[in-house]
């Protein structure tokens, strides 16, 4: 082959070769565009128009003042699909209810101090409002409402997934901005959130902290392996918060249970309770049938989960029914 032909062949190859940078950088550009689209839509949404009717006001009679117990409510998601997510309007109505009843939303620091028996400056009618999952949608829908009613909320974030820049979740930068606004506190929901693990050969699933994990190759993990996994998980969640400048005060236990309600090893629950207490102080759990009592300084604090079917009247009913002053 002559040199001319070689040159010709080389020149011909240049065309497809010149596409390479686009092929190599293209995916990053697409990702960058998706991130841009996500960031563009990351601002807080305006509050929906709503008015509390005279009939509602008549139904929602004032409740007794603080009497040594604090109600804690939890939102899994807002404005998303699924039964565990409330709509934007539902959230607005529920917060309007709390405002109408004279509740003041307390910070996680106040709550933590109160749990430890330290002076916390509790208002007349305290409530702790929490959001799980670290979702962007929770911030977008709730922020203006919190501002409107002068409330504050605590958002629990899966720390590892936040670091992985899951586009559905908030970023560390956004979380800092939220905390600076004075309307939000940031705490951990483990490192991976509401993660469940396989607990038996039939494929049954359970909360990650509450069960020894089952794998087909090794069967159920040993207690030592479970201990290493969960300890590392709790330590990592704490370290992640500290590394990003947040004080670890509370943990939303992934799956809402650390083995208290169900487990495949009786040693698990006391181990996790100690672990959470030493690393975070407070570990929020889910109550059986989702009808918990108000939280007190002692015992596991259980939250009232609000979902798609929960109305403002349901929330009022729970607040009224579980109020220890009544």
């Amino acid at each position, binding site marked *: 082959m*002559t*040199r*001319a032909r070689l*040159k*010709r062949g*080389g*020149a*011909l190859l*240049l*065309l497809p070769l*010149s596409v390479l*940078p*686009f092929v190599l*950088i293209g995916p*990053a*550009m697409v990702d*960058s*565009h998706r991130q*841009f689209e996500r*960031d*563009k839509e990351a601002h807080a949404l305006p509050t929906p128009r709503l008015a509390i009717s005279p009939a509602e006001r008549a139904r929602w009679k004032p409740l007794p003042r603080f009497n040594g117990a604090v109600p804690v409510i939890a939102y899994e998601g807002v404005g998303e699909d699924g039964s565990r997510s409330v709509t934007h309007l539902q959230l607005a109505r529920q917060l309007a209810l709390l405002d109408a009843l004279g509740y003041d939303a307390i910070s996680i620091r106040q709550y933590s101090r109160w749990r430890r028996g330290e002076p916390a400056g509790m208002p007349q009618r305290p409530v702790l409002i929490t959001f799980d999952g670290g979702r962007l949608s929770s911030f977008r829908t709730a922020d203006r409402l919190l501002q409107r009613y002068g409330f504050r909320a605590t958002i629990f974030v899966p720390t590892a997934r936040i670091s992985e820049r899951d586009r559905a979740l908030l970023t560390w*930068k956004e979380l800092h901005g939220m905390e600076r606004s004075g309307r939000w506190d940031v705490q951990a929901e483990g490192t991976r959130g509401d993660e469940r693990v396989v607990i038996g050969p039939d494929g049954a699933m359970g909360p990650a902290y509450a069960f020894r994990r089952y794998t087909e190759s090794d069967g159920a993990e040993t207690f030592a392996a479970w201990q290493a996994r969960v300890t590392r998980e709790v330590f990592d969640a704490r370290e992640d918060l500290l590394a990003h400048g947040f004080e670890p005060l509370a943990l939303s236990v992934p799956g809402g249970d650390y083995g208290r309600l169900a487990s495949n090893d009786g040693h698990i629950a006391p181990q996790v309770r100690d672990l959470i207490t030493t690393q975070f102080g407070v570990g929020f759990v889910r109550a059986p049938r989702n009808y918990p009592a108000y939280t007190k300084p002692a015992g596991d604090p259980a939250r009232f989960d609000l979902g798609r079917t929960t109305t403002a009247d349901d929330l009022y009913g729970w607040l009224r029914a579980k109020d220890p002053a009544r």
Partner: protein
Amino acid sequence: MAVVSDRALDPGSRALLDLTLRQGVSDEQVAKLVGAEPDDIADRRADALEEVIELAEPADGEAERVIAVAERILAEARAAEDERSEAAAPPRTTGNALDLVLRLLAAGYLALLLVAVIVYKAAFVEMLMVDPLLTAYGLVVCGYIVTRFVFSMVYRAPRDAGLEPRVAIVMPAFNEEEAIGRSLRSLLQVDYPHEKLEIVAVDDGSTDQTLAAMRAVAADEPRVRVIAFGRNLGKRAAMAAGIRATEAEVIAFVDSDSVLEPDALRKLVQGFADPKVGAVCGHADVLNVGQSWLTRMQAVRYFVAFRVVKAAESIFNTVTCCSGCFSAYRREAILPRLEWWENQRFLGVQSTFGDDRSLTNCVLRDWRIKYHANAVSHTAVPATFHQFMRQQLRWKRSWTRESLIVGRFVWRKNPLASIATYVGVVLPLVAPVICVRTVVWQPLFGGGGVPLVYALGVYAMALGYGLYYAVRHPRYDHLWIFGVGFCFFYLAFLLWQTYFAMLTVRTTSWGTRPATAGSHEAAA
């Protein structure tokens, strides 16, 4: 002849050597016979000769003789080629069917690239709210480049109006004894009526044999007039003296390191068919393309700068720089400002370089200026990094000075043309800031990642220029990739010269040439 009887060669090569070396058949004839390009024939002959040299056994006495003959033929062929390329414009390249297919492929690729860039910019237009500086810069750059391409597609070279005005080619020279004779002779070879063409060679006080070389040419050719300065007065003075020495209606300037294609002058003057046109800029290709990687990059750069940028300017009759390589002026357009131009001063010092851009500005105020893509000259460009950087610095200094001047009156021209001119002035000033911010500041201190978007944007721009060369050049070859390389070379080395050029704008040294009158004055 031993070379062609070497049995180790393949029959094709043997036949080729036999035909071209022994029987004296020209490459063109062989090419026609076998349906190939003359260049391919020459390449193949060179390959065959090298093969002869490699195949021969050193111990063999006959082989040594073969090698000696082959090496002599190779050396003679190369010397002849060098001589030909220096004395005259290189032959016009032509393409075959494969070239056409590849060029069409490149055209499709270029169109796709432009559409993709526009779509991308449109998709990110809301980034203006997030990062106004970078986004606005990106949009302006994109708009500028895309409009240059679009306008250049609309561009049509001036038609042949049958004009044959009296033309004087002014060629100033200072200490160019080696090139001046060849340059003058090449001018005499242009296809233009003898009685309507004169060549004014001005010796600017050379201390070598330049004047003698000029007189040697003039002795054989009455169309050549020689003006000799007793001392070095500077290039502008030499050019002005040449202008004053002639009564020709059109005055053309050709750099002493440029050669013209035979029909270049005839084509160039057709631009003056419009009585409002005061100057016409010819096209310049690179003469010494194959000399180094730098000249290859400049080949693409020149091609795009003329075929895209000047063509785009030309559709509004506002070419902002008639290249010194080859341009022509209407006499009445330059005479009113000739003295000012000759003695131009800037910030208290005499302007010694940027004569072409300055003269263009003198004419552009009141006249139209066009570009003729088919009036082609070939110019030798710097082949080493040092020479090139000095030349670019000089150009940037004159660009700084003349941008301030053109900015004062270009707003009276077509709005699209004036906006493009102002944008063309602002972008090089902003570009270094954007580069530092994007490549250094943001990744290190601003929380930004690797500047992939910026890198890909530069690559897309570079690829656009390279592909344009591939599309418009008759023969598809690898040279276009050097255009891509040039954009990154510009980013790495030339971008930063702008500020330095502005700070040293009063400097009058040419850098790439021996000191001339202006620089002596400045030094004094």
